[in-house]
């Protein structure tokens, strides 16, 4: 949930879409609107969704209402109401949900079998609320062991704090654009099955979208803003700090005032994003993270991640690999040019492997309603994977490609840059240069392309918009813009630059 800053986005935008026009809809997917839940407040915005064990879809709305959708007869039933800005739910059973609402993580159950929730049990409320509007409680995910992770948004300078605040007020984290003046704002939280709630990781700004990959790694998106040069995907690990300074007051051993701490000190503490979403061209406000399981039916992308986006009618596909001990990788638009609307806030897999997308808006860019994306089983022509090599990148395509086009270096116009780490809002790209392609090698089955670049620079985003590439059968490449966040190289990675200035 960030503002579009044109200045920083313009050159990337031109690069991404100025060369050969926008993406076309892949005919292999259909996007259909679901009937909307019968909210008595008439809202159609979706802030949480999951599929119940019996195949019904559970959604929560900003109004605090929770509905179940029965696909068999396209009917909706009210399950619960009165929640406070619920922003995510986990369906544990047909009568039991875990819901993140502003003041709590809450277990919502129907105990008498009448289909309506009657028990709202606090799972945890062991965190603070200053009453600032921006202190959202985001998207709980299971830790796989009976516990939960959830994300606590920071407060905004767009308003102050309430007269009575919950939890110990900490003035050291009150200053700055986004603040963390009550406990554990700006942290990714863990609640253990034993009942212990603690800040698990630090330094997020607006973590609107936790999710896990198929191996159980935890990820969260963050939105461009102060300390966040461009929106990001973090691989969340215990005790780490991801860059937004305010929440450091909740980290044991940190004694200072976050915004008075030298940025070099903070830069040395922070863990890098595994993917940076280029601002404007790729994403402005990324949302939910969701893995593509084997039973999903969207094409040959098992194990990759889907990431929603508010400002564009777009869901991104993220492919990661472990390099130098850490995850890093690429993001590429998915479903672009389809009737999918903006505000892609939440996602869930239907039992048949199709995809539900819930849209929201609140007061930001976005939309409303639920879309249902179905695949017709034909392999879409997409970049299946992008991996780093010693001196460039290795692409895998879902179909054999047109070799004549692919072998031309001008098909692969690469550029690279980085976003600065600093307190001010966002960052323009720095060290933005075109990177010439030295050679192109194509595999015998014409599905893989190895690009050797004149220079591959660590700690820089590398991106390309593949030009005029068709599959051997003539299908044009649907999504041609891809950005790989090179943190580490396969060998001889230079020391991490602070990138706090040019």
């Amino acid at each position, binding site marked *: 949930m960030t503002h579009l800053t044109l200045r920083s986005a313009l050159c990337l935008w031109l690069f991404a879409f100025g060369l050969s026009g926008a993406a076309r809809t892949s005919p292999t997917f259909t996007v259909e609107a679901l009937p909307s839940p019968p909210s*008595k*407040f*008439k*809202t159609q*915005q979706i802030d949480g969704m999951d599929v119940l064990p019996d195949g019904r879809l559970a959604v929560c709305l*900003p*109004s*605090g209402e929770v509905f179940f959708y029965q696909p068999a007869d396209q009917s909706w039933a009210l399950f619960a*109401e*009165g*929640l*406070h*800005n619920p922003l995510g739910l986990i369906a544990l059973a047909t009568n039991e949900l875990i819901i993140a*609402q*502003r*003041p*709590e993580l*809450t*277990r919502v159950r129907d105990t008498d079998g009448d289909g309506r*929730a*009657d*028990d*709202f*049990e*606090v799972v945890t*409320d062991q965190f*603070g*609320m*200053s*009453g*600032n*509007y*921006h*202190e*959202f409680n985001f998207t709980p995910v299971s830790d796989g062991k009976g516990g939960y992770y959830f994300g606590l948004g920071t407060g905004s300078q*767009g*308003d*102050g*704090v*309430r*007269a*009575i*605040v*919950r*939890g*110990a*007020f900490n*003035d050291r984290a*009150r200053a700055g654009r986004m603040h963390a003046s*009550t406990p554990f704002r700006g942290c990714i939280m863990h609640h253990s099955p034993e009942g212990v709630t603690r800040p698990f990781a630090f330094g997020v700004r607006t973590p609107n979208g936790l999710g896990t990959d198929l191996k159980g790694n935890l990820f969260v998106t963050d939105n461009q803003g102060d300390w966040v040069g461009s929106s990001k995907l973090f691989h969340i690990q215990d005790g780490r700090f991801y860059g937004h300074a305010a929440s450091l007051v909740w980290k044991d051993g940190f004694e200072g005032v976050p915004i008075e701490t030298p940025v070099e000190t903070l830069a040395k503490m922070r863990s890098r994003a595994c993917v940076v979403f280029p601002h404007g061209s790729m994403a402005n406000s990324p949302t939910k993270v969701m893995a593509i399981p084997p039973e999903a039916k969207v094409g040959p992308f098992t194990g990759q991640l889907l990431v929603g986006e508010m400002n564009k009618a777009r869901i991104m596909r993220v492919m990661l690999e472990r390099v130098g001990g850490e995850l890093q990788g690429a993001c590429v638009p998915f479903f672009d040019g389809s009737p999918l609307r903006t505000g892609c806030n939440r996602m869930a897999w239907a039992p048949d492997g199709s995809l539900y997308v819930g849209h929201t808006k*609140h*007061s*930001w860019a976005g939309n409303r309603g639920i879309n249902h994306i179905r695949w017709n089983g034909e392999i879409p022509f997409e970049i299946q994977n992008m991996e780093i090599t010693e001196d460039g990148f290795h692409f895998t395509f879902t179909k054999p490609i047109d070799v004549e086009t692919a072998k031309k270096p001008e098909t692969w116009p690469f550029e690279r840059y980085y976003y600065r780490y600093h307190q001010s809002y966002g960052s323009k790209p720095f060290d933005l240069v075109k990177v010439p392609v030295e050679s192109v090698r194509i595999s015998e089955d014409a599905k893989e392309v190895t690009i050797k670049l004149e220079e591959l620079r660590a700690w820089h985003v590398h991106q390309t918009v593949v030009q005029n590439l068709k599959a051997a059968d003539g299908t044009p490449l649907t999504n041609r813009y891809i950005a790989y966040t090179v943190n580490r190289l396969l060998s001889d990675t230079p020391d991490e630059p602070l990138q706090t200035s040019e």
Partner: protein
Amino acid sequence: MLLAMAAMALAETSENAPFPDKDQLAKGKALYEAAGSCVACHMPNGKGQPGSIPPLAGSEWLESTDRSIAISLRGLAGPIKVNGKRYYSAMPPQLLFNDAELASILTYVNFAWGNQGEVVDASRVARARKELPPNVYTPASITKAFPFQEKALSKRNGPYKPDYDDQLTHVTEPVVYRTFMPGASPAAFAVALPGNHYYCWDAGESRLRYVWSKGGFIKGNQRHWSSNGKPVAQFDGLPYYTARSSLLKPEHAELLAKTDHRAPIYDTTQVDDFPFDIAGVDAKPRFLGVRLIDGFPQFRVRFGAHEIRETIRVDKRDGLATGVVRAFEVEPPAALTLSLTPNALAQLSASVGSIDEAGLLKLDAKQAAAFQVTITEKPDAPVPTSTEGGNR
């Protein structure tokens, strides 16, 4: 006196508008203030009633006298915005007044409370009565027939789409919202009970904060959750019961609904206003959640080894809702002291034991297992000044 001053101000500043005739003003004032007349809804001070009846004092709708005449003669059905604020009630056609009487009333309104309008002539009313279409105006049709002069005015005045809460006037089953409430921590409940008594229960301090009945349930909650989440709920009544808050002082009253403080008045770790005292328990209370019993929330609080449950329903006498009954259960039961907060607006009573002058209810373990406290709103309660409302 006030009228004379308003008239003098007008005479000095507005050359075109004729000076209102003193007799006409007096006649208009008398008609306006007659029992069952305009005053019943729009109030003697012309300020109307928040949320339902729009003000006449300072109303930007009065810029067009033709519009005022039309609304008076034909009525206005449906909710409107006046000076940027929303009012839900409809205005019936005023058929009891003849042309001269209505002209006097409108002239009075045009010059009362600092308004600076024009004198209304009876013939103008007569012409309108004859020529206006016969139907009751809607917010859309009145603003189409008599558009506002400036764009800025038309943005602040005109139709609006009422939301669910605007229409929630007669509560027949409990309504439970979690939202931002004034005078509570950000983890608050707002509950409307059948019989139209309302309360705020604060999960951040595990206790009831206040109870009210007049002026309706919270307004504009939809603006809280459908926007970025900034607006704090509003309601019009004054609580007839407000639990003591040791760190709040009367001068804080104006700050409690605001969201733009640099620092809070207090945080919940600084207070010990939990109303239960059980020997040997020095733990902080911990909110466990709510269960719905016939739709009524039962609040559950962990206090040391005890679980305290509270369910609040309306107290009915002769079919009228006269207050609330707070039903408590303590498990395991223990001798306890419950601190209530006596005030002039309510009568406190308990099903067991007796409440002393300081509001303390001391119970033995057997009594404490299940007991009730009734808070009865005093029907003849004095109208409090704005600072007497405690922490609202």
